[in-house]
């Protein structure tokens, strides 16, 4: 992937933040090499390398990405380099850092005018992203104090921006796979995305996401969906419908964290995947009937259902471009309503029937790149 080009802007705010964090991280590498863990991942089909200073932070960081680990280190520079350190574990400070007393204070964003460097400062984190060199570097005050969302979806803002820079559509949607085929689950909150993803995973589908996915469309029009996080944030009431998940649920700290976090990879019997060829878009909705059924959805119905709730507004992306990409995706794959009945066991059966039907049709052929 060719790097983005930016005008020189090294003195700007975001660039200075990046420079300070970079300098401090270099100290960690130099002074504490045995406390730095290195992980290689395959994220959105790209090589990502993380160097994490501080063993507890390393464990926390790796958990939601564990299913994306790549046994083969990239031969050349990775497509994204992530460098983080934990001050509490390493004792390493840098100028201007320190935990804010008010954890609820909104984030402070600094960006260089050309958009190359962006830093996002919160109470106990400061993360800077250089979009040109594709490197994220950041300070974590104490990983034990990270919020449930920060541990469940590390570097969420930065990763969405990185995906966008790669031309990958970031969607608020679920994704499950069967064989090489994947089914996108889209729609507003409460429509049943998590229910479908988890019941399908329980029935033998591979779990990729119930919240955020990346979707790439190649020159031949084939769409590949990518898993970003192996974590699920579930409402406690919702969780009771999945008794096998309950022992793995990490409760949030109310009132700000009203959900429980489950690392899907921890749950025995559930398998995960990093990528799947999208063969259909399903729009779950709660039906009044007892049975679950699949009925065709028009492209217009699909787009107006999916776009408002699934399209992510990411800075520096024109929303128009994301909208067009989503439109092309909706056009490219069959689209269906999934009317959810009360019998959860029936959901994966209907979804499996659909996958069989769609993949047996001539328009779908096996994708070469659905590596785990």
């Amino acid at each position, binding site marked *: 992937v060719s790097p983005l080009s930016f005008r020189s802007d090294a003195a700007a705010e975001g660039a200075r933040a990046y420079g300070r964090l970079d300098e401090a991280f270099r100290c960690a590498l130099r002074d504490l090499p045995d406390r730095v863990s290195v992980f290689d991942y395959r994220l959105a089909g790209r090589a990502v390398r993380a160097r994490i200073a501080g063993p507890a932070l390393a464990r926390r960081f790796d958990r939601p990405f564990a299913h994306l680990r790549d046994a083969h280190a990239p031969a050349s520079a990775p497509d994204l380099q992530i460098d983080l350190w934990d001050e509490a574990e390493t004792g390493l400070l840098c100028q201007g850092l320190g935990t804010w007393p008010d954890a609820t204070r909104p984030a402070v*964003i600094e960006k260089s005018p050309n958009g190359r460097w962006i830093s996002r400062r919160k109470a106990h984190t400061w993360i800077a992203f250089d979009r040109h060199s594709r490197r994220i570097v950041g300070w974590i005050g104490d990983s034990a104090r990270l919020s449930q969302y920060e541990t469940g979806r590390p570097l969420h803002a930065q990763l969405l921006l990185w995906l966008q820079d790669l031309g990958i559509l970031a969607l608020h949607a679920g994704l499950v796979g069967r064989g090489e085929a994947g089914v996108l689950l889209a729609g507003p909150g409460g429509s049943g995305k998590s229910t479908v993803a988890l019941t399908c995973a329980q029935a033998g589908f591979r779990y990729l996401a119930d919240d955020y996915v990346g979707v790439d469309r190649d020159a031949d029009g084939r769409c590949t969906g990518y898993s970003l996080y192996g974590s699920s944030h579930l409402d406690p009431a919702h969780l009771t419908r999945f008794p096998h998940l309950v022992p793995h649920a990490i409760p949030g700290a109310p009132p700000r964290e009203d959900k429980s976090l489950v690392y899907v990879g921890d749950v025995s019997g559930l398998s995960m995947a990093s990528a799947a060829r999208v063969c259909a878009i399903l729009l779950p909705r709660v039906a009044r009937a007892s049975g679950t059924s699949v009925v065709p959805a028009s492209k217009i119905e699909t787009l107006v259902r999916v776009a408002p709730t699934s399209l992510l*507004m990411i*800075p520096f992306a024109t929303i128009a471009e994301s909208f067009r990409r989503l439109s092309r995706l909706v056009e490219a794959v069959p689209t269906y309503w999934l009317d959810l009945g009360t019998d959860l066991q029936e959901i994966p059966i209907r979804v499996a029937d659909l996958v069989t039907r769609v993949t047996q049709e001539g328009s779908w052929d096996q994708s070469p790149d659905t590596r785990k």
Partner: protein
Amino acid sequence: VIHTELEEGAVLLHLESGLYYSLDAVGLEIWRQIEGGRRAEDIARAVTERFDVRHDAAEAAVASFVEQLARERLVIPADGDLARADAAPAGVPGPVERKPFAPPALIKHDEPLHQVALHPFDPQLPLAE
């Protein structure tokens, strides 16, 4: 306003309001003609060529539809001088067989984009928290 054409019509996104609108096939034909800068009478003629409808009914449908679009600020009526009367209506030549006509529908979808979208670098909107 940006739009995307789909098999049964089109979806419009009003970038300022973040609202979505859907159009049926007749609505899309009118939208295309408006984009081509055509006058109302030329648009009605194009609709008559492509759909099974009398010219006076097409004129009334176009007028009503354009009024709806303007009310939603999806179009801003141009002065008469600006509209193009010199060119034939845009698009493909009239089909051999005219499609069935139904009065064009503009459906407003009331869940605006900005209420649900995430903006990870907006300091006022903590991400998913």
